[in-house]
């Protein structure tokens, strides 16, 4: 059992309980035991800090099995924990493809062994992501898979998509379709427009995304089936989703941090770190995605964390693969770019930001135990962060095995201090807490009847949380 401790004077932001207030939160035995002004066990002074339900990422690529040179389940979930995540949903484009129960079991086991973060694997819609024959969803659903996607590859046949949406209703499961009409994007390298023409790169027209989303919305609506739309990148897509939600279509949607922070202007460098699919778009698209997050048209912020080893990205633009890292920067980007200065007006309130990063994604995928509410009896899946701490992204200091982040060298605001998975510290004082040490702590605390070696900051003792102050300093 983990010991008992209380985050005191913490700003609890818990959208599921509609709370944003300064209070105490006590954790014992892996669960939340109190969220009022009481305290028990070790006191951790959290004045000025935010405690929220652990973040949930609907869209990551952990690359294992198959591309362990880019990422492993262990390294990817370590990156997730560092970013404040307690649950991530790895996509099915592994090798072999996650189109059968065996790979689901493997990924679940690897994540359990690593212990950094819970994973909820996404199963493939079709065998081999080929878009032709349905994968055996039932076997995967039996292991808890709630969402199926051929992410990276669109389900091009409307008939196969319709069957998948309908068949998945057996489990009230969700189909997530990579929104790209492939006949419009052959060889596409960046957003289509004036800039693609100037740079001589093949354009990825926005209509390719919008046509696919429109088709899928109509199919899902007709069947009353559950659809999830990944990485929404255009103003037109946001408008289609807004309309569908008004109409009552059972749809949820996500936006990636790079689509609300970066524009195609960066492609002028021809640095493939900016190559991603769907591509970086224009300022007006960024504004529309932000508005979609603000009004709830877009439910979730999901990273589309897509690691690629340096030798793959250090190539000609036309040959480099699509994708960017996201897990270790998503919270800070959201705080820096969307929450900003809360008093001076911002795109999202803190509560909305946490809803988009935790509560909404957990609910949209039926992930229990995550996303709040943070209330007595709930598993202690939590993140504590300093919303004001500034830090500089160092691409060589990430937990990910790859370093293809477009934010290297940028100063961001908002830093994770602790991440707790079922009451256990996966990140402590901004550093990955190895499971062995955590277990050793547990052993020690059992022997000593002491709290995890965590020292109260007030007491000023020389380890554990004493370094909290240091976190606020930019390294």
């Amino acid at each position, binding site marked *: 059992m983990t010991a008992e401790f209380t985050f005191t004077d913490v700003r609890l932001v818990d959208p599921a309980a509609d709370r944003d207030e300064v209070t105490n939160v006590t954790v014992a035995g892996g669960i939340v035991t109190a969220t009022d002004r009481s305290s028990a066990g070790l006191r951790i002074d959290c004045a000025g800090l935010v405690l929220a339900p652990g973040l949930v990422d609907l869209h990551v690529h952990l690359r294992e099995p198959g591309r362990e040179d880019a990422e492993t389940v262990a390294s990817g979930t370590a990156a997730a924990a560092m970013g404040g995540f307690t649950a991530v949903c790895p996509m099915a484009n592994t090798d072999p493809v996650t189109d059968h129960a065996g790979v689901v079991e493997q990924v679940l086991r690897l994540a359990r062994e690593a212990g950094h973060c819970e994973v909820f694997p996404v199963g493939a819609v079709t065998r081999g992501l080929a878009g032709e024959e349905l994968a055996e969803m039932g076997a995967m659903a039996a292991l808890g898979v709630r969402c199926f996607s051929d992410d990276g590859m669109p389900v091009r046949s409307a008939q196969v998509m319709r069957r998948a949406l309908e068949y998945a209703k057996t489990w009230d499961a969700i189909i997530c379709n990579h929104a790209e009409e492939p006949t419009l994007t052959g060889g596409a390298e960046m957003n289509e*427009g004036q800039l*693609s023409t100037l740079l*001589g*790169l093949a354009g990825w027209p926005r209509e390719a995304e919008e046509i696919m989303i429109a088709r899928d919305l109509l199919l899902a609506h007709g069947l009353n089936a559950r659809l999830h739309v990944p990485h929404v990148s255009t103003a037109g897509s946001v408008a289609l989703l807004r309309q569908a939600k008004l109409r009552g279509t059972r749809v949820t949607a996500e936006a990636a941090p790079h689509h609300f922070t970066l524009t195609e202007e960066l492609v002028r460098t*021809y640095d493939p770190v900016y190559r991603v699919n769907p591509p970086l778009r224009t300022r007006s698209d960024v504004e529309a995605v932000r508005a979609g997050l603000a009004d709830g048209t877009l439910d979730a912020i999901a990273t589309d964390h897509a690691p690629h080893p340096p030798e793959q990205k250090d190539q000609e*633009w036309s040959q480099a693969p699509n994708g960017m890292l996201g897990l270790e920067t998503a919270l800070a980007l959201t705080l820096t770019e969307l929450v900003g200065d809360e008093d001076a007006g911002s795109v999202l309130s803190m509560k909305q930001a946490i809803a988009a990063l935790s509560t909404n994604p957990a609910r949209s995928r039926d992930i229990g135990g995550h996303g709040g509410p943070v209330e007595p009896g709930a598993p202690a899946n939590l993140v504590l962060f300093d919303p004001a701490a500034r830090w500089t992204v160092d691409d060589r200091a990430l937990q990910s095995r790859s370093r293809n982040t477009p934010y290297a060298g940028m100063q961001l605001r908002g830093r994770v201090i602790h991440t707790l998975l079922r009451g256990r510290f996966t990140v402590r004082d901004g550093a990955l807490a190895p499971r062995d040490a955590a277990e050793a702590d547990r052993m020690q605390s059992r022997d000593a009847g002491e709290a995890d070696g965590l020292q109260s900051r007030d007491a000023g003792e020389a380890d554990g949380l004493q370094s909290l102050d240091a976190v606020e300093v930019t390294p």
Partner: protein
Amino acid sequence: MINDLLAISDLDAAQIGRILDTADGLKDIALRPIKKVPVLRGRTVCNLFYEDSTRTRISFELAAKRLSADVINFSAKGSSVSKGESLKDTALTLQAMGVDAIVIRHSASGAPQQLTRWVDAKVLNAGDGWHQHPTQALLDLYTIRDRFGRLEGLRVAIIGDVFHSRVARSLVQGLTTMGAEVTLVGPPTLLPPGVDSWGVTVSHDVDEVLGEIDVCYLLRVQQERMDEQFFPSSREYARIWGIDRDRLARLPQGAIVMHPGPMNRGVEISADAADAPNSVIVEQVSNGIAVRMSCLYLMLGAEQRADGGFL
């Protein structure tokens, strides 16, 4: 004077003027019995060609040799590239060997710009993807100026597949920088998105344009574009946008016909037009050597002669 030459937009009107003036002085070397001057002696130029090219590679090789530079030719075939070596590693190798300039042709847009991150050598773009082909534009500007004595105020129609053409992108920038008036002509499918922002006129009707131009510049139309449904057939293309004998006759007195080569005779240009007395297509080729000599000289040799002379 010039550091890297990646795109025509890197140059202002004065720089373009200087390159063309310098080419003027260098052109006569080709007429001498010994076609060589020692201005780049001891300098090494590497021709790094990742894409097949005959005329551009030979033109650069001749240009460098006439300036007495040592020339290394590196083509993707038969090099370590076919063993899977990356552009970055090839660049680092050339850097380690101490070459002074790299002339690069690559099918990937932006590859020359990426190369500048890895080497100290000066980089000269000899054509990258659909992006830029600056020396082609310079030799075209040279050829036009040679004929008309000026560029400002001239009316130039560029006809054909602008969408996939690095020549068109470069030439339009060069012409507009020098004050010429440009009209792009072709089917809407072959005019790229955002072309309205280029400061040019756009037309889909060749016949409407022909009577009021000084330069009729034709772009190569590749067979595979037909397979991709940019237009239905080469026959229809030739009929609507090709320059044949009848259209040639409608050009104003003194107007010239240009083509960057290689030509598809019978598609964008008929044999009558290609071989007409007012066609300067062959001059473009010979001027290409002088213009490339000029670029190499201004990149590698100019700083060594304080008096500005080079011969």
